[in-house]
């Protein structure tokens, strides 16, 4: 009797277990189907961009549109490059981005060291103020800052785009500081006993140890400089000084609806950012983790 009971119970249990497993399997299949559909929707515009950049204008204008170009017009890229002043724009952007990365990495690792590893009266208050400034929208300071640069005759030069980087940016200081906090103080104490100054410790010990955070802010700054639109828009008016964003905007004005050239131009501008993303994917996620407090 009792053995029959228990065997029935076991049977019922395994039945329940099987139906649950089945339900989970179906659920998983539905989930994968939904995700795949979403992934296709997300990739479609990118595919469209690439295929348009390789079509002839005739094919672009024909209806219904084709997904794969009938013939591949690779020369669109060459023509785009020569129709717009892309060599100039690229060099300008690389200069701005390079200076931006160097100044941001130096200033933010330096300032963050003060906030993370040196105790001094007023530090907590300053840190709170700094966090508060992250909430201030950029547009409030845009015009007065412009006026200031206009008064010292920096408008029309790259200085307004380069110099502010020397004074750090709140978000990046915060990010590096969070990372520094996870580095043990004993390392600094040991350095001090050996007679090293804070400057030496910052330069020789902290920067190498904080490499992940340094890479994160370098990528961030590069991306920011690469995509900067508003800055060059108000400070730069000479065409030969345009960066890629402003250059592409003026290229758009010149080509209006020549979508094959416009898509090729857009892809040229986007390609480095996409490449950066695939090379440093880990760091993109790392940056998010450091700032959200999952780490350190």
């Amino acid at each position: 009797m009792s053995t029959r009971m228990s065997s029935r119970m076991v049977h019922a249990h395994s039945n329940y277990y099987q139906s649950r497993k089945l339900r989970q399997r179906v659920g998983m299949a539905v989930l994968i189907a939904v995700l795949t559909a979403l992934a296709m929707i997300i990739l479609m515009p990118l595919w469209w961009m690439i295929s348009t950049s390789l079509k002839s204008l005739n094919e672009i204008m024909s209806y219904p549109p084709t997904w794969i170009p009938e013939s591949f017009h690779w020369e669109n890229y060459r023509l785009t490059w020569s129709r717009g002043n892309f060599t100039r724009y690229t060099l300008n952007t690389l200069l701005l981005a390079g200076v931006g990365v160097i100044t941001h990495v130096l200033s933010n690792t330096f300032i963050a060291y003060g906030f993370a590893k040196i105790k001094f009266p007023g530090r907590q208050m300053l840190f709170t103020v700094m966090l508060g400034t992250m909430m201030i929208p950029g547009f409030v300071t845009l015009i007065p800052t412009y006026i200031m640069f206009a008064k010292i005759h920096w408008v029309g030069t790259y200085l307004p785009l380069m110099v502010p980087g020397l004074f750090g940016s709140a978000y990046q200081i915060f990010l590096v500081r969070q990372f520094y906090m996870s580095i043990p103080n004993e390392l600094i104490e040991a350095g001090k006993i050996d007679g090293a100054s804070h400057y030496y410790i910052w330069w020789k010990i902290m920067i190498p140890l904080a490499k992940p955070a340094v890479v994160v802010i370098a990528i961030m700054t590069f991306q920011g400089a690469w995509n900067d639109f508003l800055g060059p828009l108000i400070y730069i008016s000479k065409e030969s000084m345009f960066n890629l964003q402003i250059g592409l905007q003026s290229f758009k004005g010149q080509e209006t609806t020549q979508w094959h050239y416009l898509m090729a131009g857009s892809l040229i501008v986007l390609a480095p950012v996409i490449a950066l993303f695939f090379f440093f994917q880990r760091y993109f996620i790392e940056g998010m983790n450091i700032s959200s407090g999952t780490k350190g």
Partner: protein
Amino acid sequence: MALSVDKKRSGLQQRKEARQGWVFVSPWIIGFLAFTAGPLLFSLYASFTNYDITSRHDWIGTTNYRNMLFHDPLFWKSLWNTFYYVIFSVPLTTLGSLLLAVMLNRKIPGIKIYRTIFYLPSILSGVALYILWQMLLTPGTGLVNVVIGWFGVEGPAWLVDPAWTKPAIILMKLWSVGGGMLLYLASLQNVPEQLYEASEIDGAGVIRRFWHITLPMITPVLLFELITHMIGAFQIFQEGYVMSSDMNTPGSPMNSLLFFNLHMFTKAFKVFDMGYAMALAWFLFVVVIVLTIINMVLSKYWVHYEGGDNR
């Protein structure tokens, strides 16, 4: 004796330490004064003047603010456009990225590929992206309307029809919700596994589990995202500038893409009415501050802090 010397020395040491601390943070302090505090105060003052950079600089009291409220129809138009965008885009993109994160928070084969694909659009930004979407949203042959056409529906004229320009921008933003997704995913993975196991024993279903465990656990991140996202959304500018139907009139057609900051930009850098533009900036700044405070105050009713600091 020896002790007091030691004390003196350590006091000296501390003062030296403090001095160095100030040296390290001094670049930020200088930057704060020159690029944040100074400009903020100057623009507050200048918003009560008719400053135009070159000749005029007279105190005119609240004239700028009164003109703004009573004599500038574009002020109201641009304010409306901006609110429209904020009200729809912030909740929709938050919901979208949260949904994506929940779906991806599972052990699925090839999860990394999905994650990469969903995140990819959020790193694409700037003029190139706007040009792409201008093409996708072309009424006749654009991809968006072609796809809508598969379902037998005729798509709207998007960026050409003033009634559809803002929905078009919001649609574009939804495409790149993957940026927020990563942040939610990180916090979802921090929800302790035991909580789920306990609820499973209690027989809670998937939806109840999400509502009573997952959601409360991630409310702090949700609040942070909502606030930063809202502040960001109020600053929308470039989309209206680049995606206007007529390149020479940013914000076109019929000013339907004239966002607040674009209006401010035009006043400042096209007609050089700097005083007025700074009054506009301060107006929006106060709006953003008030809304942020309201958000913070309301948050105590729905944000759950694991530390138990929920009062």
